[in-house]
């Protein structure tokens, strides 16, 4: 059949030749294009797993809105891979190789990037930073039968209603409730201003859960949304002031966050800013440094964690970063350990555990094995419930130290 197709392509090519005009160059180009078509048919599928390699896909953004956070998550995974890069199953040693793609933080580019991982025959995939892209690519992995372990995607829809998506972090309903509790406990907040980004599932979702929890605690909220590409937040912040809000809750990407912080500072707004895990990033510290803004975030992991696993991870990871200038640059130029790096590390380790438990590089077997995996990671104990979510009941609250640009640990908060 390939021959038949090729012959059609030759027809087309000849046709283009006579009809394509009389420019020599143009003719040459059309011939090349036609040949490309033929090549495309003939080349079929490239890449295959060689005997002793198991590929672990990394589906993360390294560009776009969430690029900064995605890169930090990848760093955690890369570090984990440098710590443990082989696995022994059935007496045979397999090398673990990372296959990294960039989903560009975009729901429409994500599925193609995911298809790339599928065609590279990954056994298990880790990702992604950002819930929207995770949901968007979920079916691509699902149809191919490849299990995915989300490191920091917190929206419930990621794992709901499917059997191949797992995650190692907590969920937004939990996070929203934690933050609402914190707002009421710490600031005696009666009124909250919620600012979310249109079309961002993470942002809209978390805003919604915060709203529900806050209203249950007897508060009132004012909600507003902004469009992608918006850079003028002065009007929004003015509304927050005019509404006499006690806290501003803005679960947004770091890109919007730095704009919001910058404009709040220049408008002299003293209302505390609250946000979810995305704001746990050095981008926020840079934006807030030297100002008197009050910023509080909930997150998965604290650098000052004194558990054995946690402190060892922090020291070793910092050393690894400082040894690799390129990696240090990806971390934002400093060696502050982001929570997402810790989660990336844990997700990788969980994946390896599952491969060991499955005793095979077969995605389907790994998927089945994942349900039973338990692992004590740097971010706490991980075991999956029957939806595929890690069972977690605490979140860390941190505040930005605006004088030296670091995070201050505030509290470990759980839901009452």
């Amino acid at each position, binding site marked *: 059949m390939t021959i038949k197709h090729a012959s059609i392509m030759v027809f087309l090519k000849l046709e283009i030749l006579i009809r394509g005009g009389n420019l020599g160059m143009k003719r040459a180009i059309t011939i090349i294009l036609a040949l490309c078509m033929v090549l495309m048919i003939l080349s079929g599928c490239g890449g295959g797993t060689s005997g002793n390699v198991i590929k672990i896909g990394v589906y993360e953004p390294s560009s776009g809105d969430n690029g900064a956070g995605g890169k930090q998550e990848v760093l955690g995974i890369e570090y984990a891979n440098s710590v443990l890069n082989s696995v022994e199953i059935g007496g045979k040693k397999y090398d673990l190789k990372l296959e990294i793609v960039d989903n560009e933080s975009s729901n429409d580019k994500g599925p193609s990037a995911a298809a790339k991982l599928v065609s590279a025959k990954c056994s298990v995939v880790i990702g992604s930073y950002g819930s929207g892209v995770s949901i968007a690519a979920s079916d691509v992995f699902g149809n191919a039968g490849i299990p995915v372990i989300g490191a920091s995607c917190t929206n419930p829809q990621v794992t709901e209603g499917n059997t191949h998506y797992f995650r190692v972090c907590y969920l937004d309903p939990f996070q929203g409730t934690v933050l609402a509790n914190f707002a009421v406990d710490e600031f005696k907040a009666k009124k909250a201003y919620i600012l979310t980004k249109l079309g961002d599932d993470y942002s809209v979702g978390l805003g919604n859960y915060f709203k529900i929890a806050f209203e249950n605690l007897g508060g009132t909220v004012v909600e507003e949304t902004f469009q992608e590409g918006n850079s003028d937040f002065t009007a*929004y912040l003015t509304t927050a002031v005019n509404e006499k809000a006690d806290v501003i809750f803005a679960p947004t990407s770091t890109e919007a966050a730095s704009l919001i912080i910058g404009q709040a500072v220049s408008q002299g707004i003293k209302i505390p800013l609250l946000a979810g895990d995305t704001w746990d990033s050095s981008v926020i510290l840079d934006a807030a440094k030297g100002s008197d803004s009050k910023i509080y975030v909930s997150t998965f992991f604290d650098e000052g964690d004194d558990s054995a696993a946690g402190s060892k991870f922090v020291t070793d990871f910092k050393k690894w970063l400082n040894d690799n200038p390129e990696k240090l640059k990806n971390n934002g130029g400093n060696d502050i350990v982001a929570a997402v790096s810790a989660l990336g590390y844990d997700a990788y380790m969980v994946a390896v555990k599952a491969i060991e438990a499955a005793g095979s590089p077969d995605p389907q077997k790994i998927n089945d094995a994942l349900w039973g995996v338990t692992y004590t990671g740097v971010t706490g104990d991980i075991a999956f419930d029957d939806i595929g979510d890690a069972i977690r009941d605490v979140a860390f609250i941190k505040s930005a130290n605006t004088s030296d640009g670091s995070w201050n640990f505030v509290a470990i908060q759980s839901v009452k």
Partner: protein
Amino acid sequence: MEFLNTNLPYILAGISVGGQYALIAIGYTMVYGILRLINFAHGDIFMVAGFAMVYLSATLPLYISIPLTIIITVLLGFAVERMAYKPLRTAPRMSIMISAIGVSYLLQNCAWYITSGLAKQYPTIPWISESISIGTATTKIVTVITPILTIVLVIALVILIKYTKIGMAMRAMAKDFETSQLMGVKINSVISFTFIIGSFLAAIGSLLYFTNYATVTPIAGAMPGLKAFVAAVFGGIGSIPGAVIGAFIIGICENIIRMFGWTTFSDAFTFALLIIILVAKPTGLFGEKSTDKV
């Protein structure tokens, strides 16, 4: 008074944004007046100016990097015209417009490649980044400076166009391209000059805009660009005072829409305004009588 007190920040923001749109809109309106071309790449030139400043100021002091940014932007505007528009001067209008879209695509992708699509922090320019209080509102000094600077620049530009030889040539070309060519106007240099002025103002606009909003992204130019174009059409394309007034109206309206909480529609509103003006009064507020627009 109470109303004014609570809503002053919206209006201040509107005037400031309006001033920035105005500086971009002038570039659109001048190019359109002469070439009848919507220079889709203009917003991206504005964005490149932002990135140029980010990278230059990382190594050079401000008093060098600011002029250098302006020079780079002007050169870019000049180069884009020479490479992407000049070869198509006799081609159908649609081709030039497609070429403009292509340039915009190219500039955005290059910026994306260089920055990995990550937002870059704009350097703080001393004094104009500081906060001041006006009545009940606190804002950056740049917010106040923008409209003043815009008006000064526009007056200078109008004088240039009215009283200099090159200004006369520009007016002649806007009136009738072919005839002015016959009368000995060197069209290519006049067109280049138009792009140089447009890019110069875009560079100034980008300094003010990004000082206000502090981060630059590869798509940062797209929306302001489109809105500035709408402003140019609104004021009557080809007319410089029209573009400026249109820009201020759009900037203020946009913020008033937000004041009422219709944030989802703040962008859509601008386009609705565009369609209404196109259908009702295609020549815009101050446009000359329509020739072949409708």
